[in-house]
């Protein structure tokens, strides 16, 4: 039978463990401030946008690509929906659909140029990052205030103690965790990322699949942008700046690899959660000014190094176990 007890080899497990340790330690040090529902709800709310984008980025990274234009798409989708609602008085659902549709088009252009023309994803999505940021500034100028109440409620209403974006995030993570684990369609991204040539030889239509993944990425970024705009009650063209790197880092922390073929959706959530918790802890610890960046960097490195150590230790244990089993076999 397979040797499945070596769960420490799974980044999701070690990361979850690290997060639990962080939470326990912080709760002991700051018993009142850290471990409250209120605090948790705020932490989750503030990472909901990142986590939604991270889900799409995880799928892209599984397939061996990434997208730098997501931050711009976040700004643009919110701005475009806002523009339609505010200046043209478009009905809220229609504006949302229109903004999502345009996001999908952006994703299609990225995917098409990467998959069919063969432009390097870094260059393509970097160029698109600039283009879409320009468009975002164009549609929303200095920001569009006073969006319709029915729109704002989508991001501001509460449900069971959490603001809606938290629920959206949870829903998206659950849905995509399930889809990626269980459907043939999403499973293909593991083949593509694991060995593109082999995927092609196995009859997977790699080009098309790539286009779909970029479309999905832009769709989720657009959705995140709309949620952010409704949370802010305003569309601001400067939102989402630097988001791409933050999200890619979180996703890699969560078990993806730039080489592709690895990762689980829940890792995207854990990665963003981890970064969110560290930031939170630093504020609790009154780390200020330039020390924030320095200490954040050190914690990040330390956490990953510990994780690797855990994995190696687990590896060694696993091998030792296998060995015992094998030698038992010899001796009989």
């Amino acid at each position: 039978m397979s040797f499945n007890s070596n769960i420490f080899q799974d980044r999701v497990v070690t990361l979850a463990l690290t997060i639990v340790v962080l939470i326990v330690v912080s709760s002991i040090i700051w018993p009142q401030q850290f471990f409250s529902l209120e605090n948790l709800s705020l932490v989750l709310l503030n990472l909901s946008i990142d986590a939604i984008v991270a889900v799409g980025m995880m799928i892209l990274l599984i397939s061996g690509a990434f997208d730098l234009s997501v931050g711009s798409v976040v700004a643009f989708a919110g701005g475009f929906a806002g523009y339609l609602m505010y200046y043209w008085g478009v009905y809220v659902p229609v504006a949302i659909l229109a903004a999502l549709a345009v996001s999908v088009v952006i994703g299609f252009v990225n995917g098409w140029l990467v998959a069919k023309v063969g432009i390097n994803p870094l260059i393509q999505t970097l160029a698109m990052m600039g283009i879409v940021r320009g468009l975002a500034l164009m549609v929303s100028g200095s920001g569009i205030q006073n969006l319709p109440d029915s729109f704002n409620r989508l991001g501001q209403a509460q449900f069971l103690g959490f603001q809606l974006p938290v629920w959206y995030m949870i829903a998206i993570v659950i849905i995509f965790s399930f889809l990626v684990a269980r459907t043939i369609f999403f499973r293909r991204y593991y083949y593509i990322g694991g060995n593109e040539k082999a995927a092609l030889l196995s009859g997977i239509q790699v080009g098309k699949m790539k286009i779909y993944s970029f479309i999905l990425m832009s769709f989720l970024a657009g959705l995140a942008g709309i949620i952010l705009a409704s949370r802010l009650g305003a569309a601001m063209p400067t939102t989402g700046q630097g988001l791409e790197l933050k999200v890619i880092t979180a996703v890699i922390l969560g078990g993806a690899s730039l080489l592709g073929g690895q990762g689980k959706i829940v890792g995207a959530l854990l990665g963003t959660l981890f970064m969110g918790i560290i930031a939170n802890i630093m504020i609790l610890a009154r780390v200020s000014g330039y020390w924030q960046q320095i200490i954040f960097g050190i914690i990040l490195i330390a956490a990953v190094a510990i994780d690797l150590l855990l994995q190696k230790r687990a590896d060694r244990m696993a091998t030792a176990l296998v060995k015992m089993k094998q030698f038992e076999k010899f001796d009989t």
Partner: protein
Amino acid sequence: MPLPSLSYLIDPDEKDRIRLRLKNISKRFPGVLALDQVNFDLKVGEVHAICGENGAGKTTLMNILSGNLQPDEGSIFLHGDEVKITDPQEAQRQGIGIVYQEKSLVGNLSVADNIFAGNQPVSKWHLIDRRKLINQTQQLLRKLGMHDIDAHGRVDKLSPGKQQMVEIAKALSRDPQILILDEPTAAISEQDTKVLFKIVRLMVSQGKSVIYISHRMSEIFEVSDRVTVLKDGKYQNTLGTKDTNVNEIIRLMVGRDIKEFDYQNLSTSEVVLSVSELEGDRFKNISFQLHRSEILGFAGLVGAGRSEIAQSIFGVTPDTGGQVLIRGKKVKSNEVANAIENGLGYLPENRKEQGLFLEMSVEDNISSVKSNTQTRGIFIERKGNAALTEEFVRQLNIKTPSGKTKVVSLSGGNQQKIVLAKWLAVNPDILIVDEPTAGIDVGAKSEIYQLLNQLTMAGTSIIMISSDLPELLGICDRILVFRHGRITADLSREKFSEEEIMHYSSGTKDMYREKI
């Protein structure tokens, strides 16, 4: 997936019907005309072998059949109708299944996921049914006699031989009407080959057709009905296997007779490598000595641990016990560079993953070890490297447009020759070769044996790991047999025979144990 059953046998009239016909197929690559007006036909219920030297165009022809390449000229007929095989998916739809010469598995996915790539069994909600997936995988593996492959296990944890069996399982999982096997036995053991042939015969008996490519003449004569020979991309002839013989085919392939390798014993009594009580993750108690100018064979079944022992000696994997002495000197473990400095060389079995720099030139590959370990100067010796390359291209008859060509565009056998050349170039004191002739054509093989022999004449000692038993028998002075990470026999030339080795490697005999 419906498993073929023995009850259904095709009627004899069917047998002569042409299932597939290729007409005047040509294919060009930058610098080479890989296929030149090739004709080929495949009957219902036959095994049709294709022979040819390395670079003759066999794989290219198969790539055209499986939709990976489009021919520049020519047409393909299936059951008399012209078809266009635009991509691998189309080939699958047309019932063409292929086991590629090059690995087409995804390393970090499980065996089951690989076998049913993009084709997993689903439940009624169109969700992947893991249980069914595992069951079907296990069924298939059982049919292939691979009981010990874990359907959940990651593919990159398997030895290359087992990976090859997974490839075969993958092709069979789609129940193809035409199965293409492109050198399926280059990396697998004799026993697995037998299982494979059983499956091939079963398929043929059900009216399916098999295209079989191999450089092992014995296999071709064992399994095929007809043989087609290619030479330099040109069609030579198609012969009934019963009506021809090895020499005729080789003459068609090479254009001349091959001279037999004649064995010489050069082994001396000087010990150059002494391994004692070496222990690793999957092996234990490994002790043996290698003498100057000796060719020592490592025999054993797939997964017996031979490659791993070799890598441990070479310093790739950290050994967890025992010691390795080179000419009496202890070498640092876990440091390849140190091993090479001490005169050790290791030709890995998996050329694409461990041996080649695919996107680099022939010259860069051949000079890779030499320039990184032996050259004392600072600058790249361009002239020296070019001369070196030219020498080996000639000596090993490597088919390449030039020394500047990227290795990725060469045929499998020619790539293997380059990995070999890279080690021959440094002329190591002790050379460990792991499946050195995998995928190499008959003509070149005997050249390589000659070369190895020349090396021993110059004082080099060689450890040869091979799954090609006749090869070991032909060239070795002594053979160690391995089973489950242990040495079960140490046989000198007088004592070894195919039968003896099979006994020791399958566990029915053991020199070092009383009871079996």
